[in-house]
Every structure is written in C-alpha cells, then in structure tokens.
C-alpha cells in the first residue's frame, strides 16, 4: 500500500517558518526523488502531458530521474520549460498534470511538481549550470515588454529560436509578479535570480527602469529595428470592494502589501527604507493564492491574528490546497461566508474595524459556483488594524493607454487571437494583460505560444 502514497517532502516546521521568509518546502534529496519517480507507471500515451500548458514530456523526465540521469532530465525539461525551478514551486500541478495521473485514481498521483523542482535545483548545484545561446544567432531583433513569467518565457523561447531579444522592464528588478507578488517562502529570490540569469545566458538582454509606451512607443521600437513585439506587462489597477471607508490608513491592496515586502524588502525595515505596517489583527479579503500569500506574509510580519475573510465556502476557495494547508498550519484563520460591507476608522483615519454580513449559498451563478447571498440582520463587527484587499485586479493600464491603436476590452485587456497576436502586425501579447486571469504557468504558456507565432510571422517575412 506504501506505493499509493507519494514520498513526503521535508518542510520547515510551522512554528519555525512563521519567524522567517525562507522557503517552507525544502525539496527532495536525490534518493527521495528517485523513489518518487519510480512510482510512475510510464503510461503511453501519457495523460499527464495533456494537462501541461507548456507540453513538458513528463514521463520522459520522470524516467530519467528514476534511472539517475538527472542531467538528461533537466535537458528534457528545458526543451519546453525555461523556468523549471519556478514552475516546480508555484505551478498548480494538482489541478493540471497531477490530476490526470492514473495513480491518482487509487492513491496519490506522482509528485510531478516536486520532481520538476528537484531536477531544477539539482542543476543549480552542478557545474553545468546554464544553457548556452543558440550558436546560429540571427540578426533579427525582437522585443519583450515586461519580465514576468509570460515575458521571460517568450524571451527565452525566442532566444532559443535564434532571435536577438531585449526585454524592457519598468521596475528596478526583473521578474514581474514572480518578484513583487510571490513571497520568498514560496519562491526564494535566489532561485528567481538564478532562473533569470539562465535566460540572460541564452543571450537575452534585460533593461530595467524602462517605461514602454512613454520612453518608447511601439512605433519607436519598430523604427529602432525590432521586428516583433511581445507585450507581457501584467496586472495593474487592483480591484477594491467599493464600500465605505476603503481608503482608510491601514488598508492595502494585496499588490501594495506584497510589493512592499517582496520587492522592497519592507520586512527588513529600517535596514531597508520601505516601510510596511506590522498589524496585530490582520484580515485579508479574498481566498485566492494572492490572498493566502498576503495572509502568510502578515503572519511572518508578526501579526497575532490573521484571518482570511471570504464570502463563499471553503469548497469555492480558488487558492491551491497546498497553500491553504500551509496557511492553516501557520495559524491563519479562515472566516467563511462573510462579506465586508463597511470599514470603520478611528479619529486619526486608521482602520479599526470591519462591518460584515454573514452569507449563505444560493443557486450556482455564471461561474458555476453557488452564489453567496446576504443573511438579513446578521451584521457584525470584526476588530482589525490592518486589511489587505485581495479580490483580483485589472490589466496594467499604462501601455494600452499610450498605444491608441491597440484594441482593448472594456476592462482594458489587450485583445489577441488564438496565437496571441493583436490586430497590429508584429505585436503579440500574453499573461495578465490579456483576458482570463491566468496562473503563472498559463502566462508561460502564452509566452511560448507567442514565441512560436512570432517565429512564424517573421519567417513569412
């Protein structure tokens, strides 16, 4: 029966890890990885492959691990995935490849994500650390705007296809949401730096502090000789609840709260200059991965009480199960079927409470989830000193607003066809800037798709 269960991955103990920002999961040893890999049945055709947005040969790399050929495993991963150490950590395998694994029918599926992470981390510890640039570098230049998962992937694939790629990033460090959004305890910044270094070694140039749309318009870029442009400028304009008191001090968007800590290192204030409020009673509104990331950051900043406030029930929470479990282990409480209706402030304009109403679930709504309905007369007040609003965001408005001929939806997302092409010849887009609220791996899928389409477009000349 042992075979039905996956090999456990060592983790930091909850009481330890809430005191630091280091990674929670510590990764498999070589022996553990081989043992886990040996559970794979090597199905042909392999259903797991169908679930991978970037088309990794999963049984192939798992077999290499099982037989101890870690270098071959890594090369096989790299064929499809330029950021394996990142995907092995943050991709929701349990709803993609792993959910299609035959072993999952009778027990636990093969831990594909953990194995991917193992191989990538093993590569990092070896001499052959990086891939080498395509020797047949062409003269053709392409550009990528934004260095998040979509942009990095598009850039790496285009470099592998022999294009000269320049990435423009507006922040002072590359990585996009991987840098400012995902906390170090899920994805260490060292790993991110390493993966980005790997992409640079493919010949990709990264220019930070560059505001495309303003310092260069898309037309300027074409005039400079770039033959195609991939836009991966990501998320922007965080959504708020539009309820009274939302601009009180102590209320953050998740983007602001996480950016202060992840990008600006506010948890190391005053050694670092950017501050963040260290609340005692923190609530995070929403139940996606971002909400759980924020809750776990708040816990590590020393909050005594951290709650997730969510208007539906546990079943509808969009976050990864693993994140929910980790958060619970760390003492994060979850208040379900609760909708904030008003924030209360003190005389200095700081949030001190949140009035909520209890909800019940009605009939399914357009998302297929049961619609939450308020229970009359059930209002109550929660005492809080810090609130993080994590209910999603729109696309970043900057580039579209300075590119008048780019078609956008009413919400400002850039419209693309099935190849990621916009109606402007040579301009492609992917990630959070196009409709659909993709995950990291979906955004990478967009980057891959666009790289292929750009290659076709340029070959047609």
């Amino acid at each position, binding site marked *: 029966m042992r075979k039905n269960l996956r090999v456990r991955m060592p983790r930091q103990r909850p009481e330890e890890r809430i005191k630091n920002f280091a990674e929670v999961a510590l990764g498999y040893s070589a022996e553990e990885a081989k043992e886990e890999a040996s559970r794979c049945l090597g199905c042909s055709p392999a259903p797991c492959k169908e679930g991978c947005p970037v088309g990794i040969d999963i049984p192939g790399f798992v077999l290499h691990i099982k037989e101890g050929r870690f270098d071959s495993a890594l090369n096989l991963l790299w064929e499809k995935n330029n950021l394996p150490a990142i995907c092995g950590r943050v991709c929701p395998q349990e709803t993609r490849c792993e959910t299609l694994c035959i072993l999952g029918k009778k027990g636990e599926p093969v831990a594909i994500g953990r194995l991917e992470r193992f191989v990538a981390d093993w590569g990092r510890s070896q001499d052959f650390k990086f891939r080498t640039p395509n020797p047949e570098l062409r003269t053709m230049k392409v550009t990528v705007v934004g260095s998040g998962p979509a942009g990095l992937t598009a850039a790496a694939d285009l470099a592998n296809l022999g294009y000269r790629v320049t990435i423009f990033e*507006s*922040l*002072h460090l590359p990585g996009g949401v991987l840098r*400012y959004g995902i906390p170090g305890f899920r994805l260490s910044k060292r790993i991110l730096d390493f993966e980005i270094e790997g992409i640079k070694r493919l010949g990709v140039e990264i220019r*930070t*502090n*560059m*505001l495309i749309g*303003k*310092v*260069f318009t898309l037309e300027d870029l074409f005039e400079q000789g770039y033959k195609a442009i991939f836009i991966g400028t*990501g*998320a*922007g*304009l*965080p959504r*708020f609840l*539009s309820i009274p008191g*939302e*601009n*009180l*001090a*102590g209320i*953050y*968007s998740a*983007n*602001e709260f996480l*950016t*202060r800590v992840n*990008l*600006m*290192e506010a948890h190391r*204030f*005053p*050694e*670092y*200059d*950017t*501050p963040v*409020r260290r609340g005692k009673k923190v609530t995070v509104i929403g139940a996606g991965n971002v909400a759980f990331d924020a809750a776990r950051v708040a816990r590590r900043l020393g909050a005594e009480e951290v709650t997730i406030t969510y208007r539906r029930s546990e079943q509808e929470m969009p976050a990864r199960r693993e994140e929910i479990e980790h958060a619970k282990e760390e003492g994060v409480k979850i208040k379900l079927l609760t909708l904030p209706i008003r924030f209360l*402030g003190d005389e*200095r*304009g*700081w949030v001190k409470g949140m009035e909520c109403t209890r909800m019940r679930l009605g009939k399914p709504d357009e998302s297929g989830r049961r619609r939450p309905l308020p229970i009359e007369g059930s209002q109550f007040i929660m005492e809080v000193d810090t609130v993080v609003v994590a209910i999603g*965001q729109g696309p*970043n*408005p*900057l580039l579209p*607003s300075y590119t008048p001929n780019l078609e956008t939806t009413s919400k400002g997302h850039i419209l693309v066809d099935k190849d990621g092409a916009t109606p402007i010849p040579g301009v492609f887009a992917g990630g959070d800037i196009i409709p659909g609220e993709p995950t990291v791996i979906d955004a990478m899928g967009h980057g891959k798709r666009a790289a292929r389409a750009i290659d076709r477009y340029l070959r047609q000349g």
Partner: protein
Amino acid sequence: MYRIVTKKRLAPEITLFQIKAPLIARKALPGQFVILRIDEQGERIPLTIYEADGAQGRITIIFQEVGKTTKKLSTLKVGDSLPDLLGPLGKPTSIEKYGEVLAIGGGIGIIPLVPIARALKEAGNRITTILGARTRDLIILEKEMKDLSREIYITTDDGSYGEEGLVTDALKELIAQKKRMDQVLAIGPLIMMKKVCEITKREKIPTMVSLNTIMVDGTGMCGSCRVRVGEENRFVCVHGPEFPGELVDFDELLAREKRFEREERIALERYEEELKGENAQAEARGED
C-alpha cells in the same frame, strides 16, 4: 545608472539636480514626474520633473529634505549616479487656453507650478501668481514665476518676506478685488490645497491641483496612491497627478499621507545617528 551633472542649493534644505537621463528628457512634458531610488536598500520616491532638456539629455529635479531618502539624496555630488530612475510618469498637464489663470504655489509646490505655468503662458494664458512659504528662505523660484506672471503676490507665515499670512489670505484679497480668474492652479501642501479649494469651490472657479502621494511602483499596479475624486477612487500615478480640486477628498488623503509617519521618523533618526557616527569618526581622524 543616471549621473548627476549639476547640483545647486536653492535654499537651506532645497536642492536642484540635473541628471543625465536622455530617454526620459526626450519625452517628458509639464506635469509629469519620475520615481527614483538612491541605493539597494532605498525606497521608491516620486519627484516632479522640473525641466526636461531633450537636446542635452538631462532632466532637472528639485527636492526638499523632508525624510531620510531626500536627506541622503542631498548628500550626493556631481558625478555620483542614481541606480534607478523611472519616467516620465503620470499624465502630462492638459494645456488649454483658459484666459486668466491664477497660479498658487505653496512651499515645494512651487516646483511643479513653474513648468505648468510656463506651458500655460505659452498657450496664451495670462498668469497671476501667489507664492507662499513658512519663511523667506523657502520662497523658491520666485524669479522664474515673476518672469511668467503679470502680477505676483508673496506671503510668508512669519512675515519675513511679502505679506504676513497664508496664500489663502492673498486669494481672498484678490477675490474681494473682483479679480478675474478663469482657472486656478494650486500646488502645495495638502492642507493648503484643501483650503484653496474650499474658497474657489464657493466662488465656483475651476481649480486644478497636483497631488504627490506615497507611491511604490508608480505604474498603476499597487494602489498606494489612491485618492477619492468625486465618486471614484483614482490612482495618482496613472490617472493623475492633476485632478479637479473641488472633487478631491483632502481629509481622507491627509490621513492617508500620515500612515507611515512613525516609520518615517524612525528611518530619519536612525540616519541622523549614522551621520553623527560618521562625522565623529572623521573628526577622530582629524578631517573636517
């Protein structure tokens, strides 16, 4: 890296830098700003682009020492570089022909006032100016504004220069004289802009204000700079920095802008301690 090519003291704690930033200089327009960082540990702070010289590839910023970052910034010398400079951010001022424009600048609010007033003048508007500050030394760029204005009024809180009083006193005076004002432009401390807008709202004179709020990314991603404008929540970084003053919820913004007061004090005190330590060491080594 962005090299400082000119440094000038305009007042005891107010410094002007020209910085080599050709890409930004080429595209910057009046009303826009940059975000900079001074080192690896630094925060991202927004500062108005005072002047942009596309031909020379330089931008000019002017800043007052108000906290750790601006104090540390003021210690940089010609030849030093900033690692990070992003811009031009924000929407440029919409320059229209209003007719008679009253430009009101308080303290370092005079800095963004100059380029906007200049553009308005070039568009055929006639400019009358009120400048105010705590004390004489802090009335900066007076000559620049004088050159743009048909009339100029100066107020200081302590009466050390111009009339003793506030810019709002001068504003009330002009209103009492039935001075024609088709548009007011008011830039300064939040409390000043609030008071100006209370008066001009009553008099039904359209008033534009320029806000400088706490920001992180500056590209519309984080919402730190959000402000209630009428019924809407707007982001100063991408929807602003200019808004119709009569619609801005200044009370909310006043509270929001104080939200890191404690941390700002800690950072500043710690920095000043550090400086003292360095000075003491220098003294011990027999340097000045």
